[in-house]
């Protein structure tokens, strides 16, 4: 399950990263990744498919920068990623990507946050808050009640964790969830100690 919430001054992405065995080295692989300094994304679905899209997205974003010497606006990169996903639904010998993406970005020019969702069909939607993956219906219902337009980023992180908790089996620790935030200072994945602090205010 993944969750994204847009606040007045930023966006938060949160996801559960349950591993199959305690022998897994949790901090080596990440679900929440940066595309450019101002845009990040998380997925629900097949990890390998996500990696391909991530690589593609980073390259597309850099091409834009090469041409315009300006960071790609969030809506533009989402559109490009969605186009790639659509191609794989209409080409021969390929299958659609087995992931849904949540893309969070901050636009320098307009000085505002954006949250988008991309589906395997290539359709994309802009959200104020949304949930994806396991129990996403319950997640969305929870968010509908909890969301307000004048939420600040700090509160949004708190709400995101609570939303994840709804469908979480077992104890939530800083090693089995990932949180990423995007504000005017850019996109950043929170470190485990930072996640632990937020968890402390929830437990």
């Amino acid at each position, binding site marked *: 399950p993944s969750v994204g919430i847009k606040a007045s001054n930023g966006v938060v992405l949160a996801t559960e990263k349950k591993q199959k065995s305690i022998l897994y080295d949790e901090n080596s692989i990440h679900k929440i990744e940066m595309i450019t300094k101002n845009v990040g994304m998380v997925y629900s679905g097949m990890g390998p498919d996500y990696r391909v899209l991530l690589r593609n997205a980073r390259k597309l974003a850099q091409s834009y920068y*090469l*041409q*315009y*010497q*300006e960071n790609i*606006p969030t809506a*533009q990169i989402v*559109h490009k990623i969605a186009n790639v996903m659509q191609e794989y639904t209409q080409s021969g010998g390929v299958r659609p990507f087995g992931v849904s993406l949540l893309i969070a970005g901050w636009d320098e*020019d307009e000085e505002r946050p954006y949250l988008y969702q991309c589906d395997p069909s290539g359709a994309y939607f802009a959200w104020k808050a949304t949930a994806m993956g396991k129990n996403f219906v319950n997640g969305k219902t929870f968010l509908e009640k909890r969301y307000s337009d004048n939420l600040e980023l700090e509160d949004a992180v708190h709400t995101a964790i609570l939303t994840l908790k709804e469908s979480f089996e077992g104890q939530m620790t800083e090693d089995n969830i990932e949180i990423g935030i995007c504000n005017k200072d850019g996109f950043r994945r929170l470190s485990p100690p930072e996640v632990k602090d937020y968890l402390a205010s929830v437990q």
Partner: protein
Amino acid sequence: MSILEYNGAAIIAMKGRDCVAIASDRRFGIQAQTVSTNFQKIFEMGPRLYIGLPGLATDVQTVHQRLQFRLNLYELRENRRIKPKTFLSMVSNLLYERRFGPYFVEPVIAGLDPKTFEPFIASMDLIGCPMVTDDFVVSGTCSEQMYGMCESVWEPNMDPQELFESISQALLNAVDRDAVSGWGGIVHIIEKDQVTTTELKGRMD
């Protein structure tokens, strides 16, 4: 015979207080023979964004058309007007794509930021090397003459009327010292809420 001097041209752009100006000559000639006295070398790319293209006339027109193509798609995709600084990068990219077989134009850009209305001027060479300045930029067959004139008449924070006088005098007197430039002039003064276009009366020789 240098290709950049085949048709002849002169463009100047100057920065003022909350305004920019861009001016060009109007001659279209083939070496010594003047063919037209109303050839367009400055093109409007946005409500407050202008580009001047001196150099080989065929490339002046082609670069303008291809740039317009890219700009139209940009504005449709991004649903916004392009910033002068971004436009500079777009032009630079277009020219460098032809690094080993370049367009023979050395563009001059003048405009105001669509949101902040901050003045912006810049020029670049035929393979896209950008140069952003705070005072003036020149390009064309009489660039040395134009540099001399601009250095003399330019001062910071000129208002639109003073800017008009300065850029006009700089252009007129520079092209009079160049055989392949001149035959009339045109000036655009770009301010936050209006653009004033004036045709200059100069020596028709």
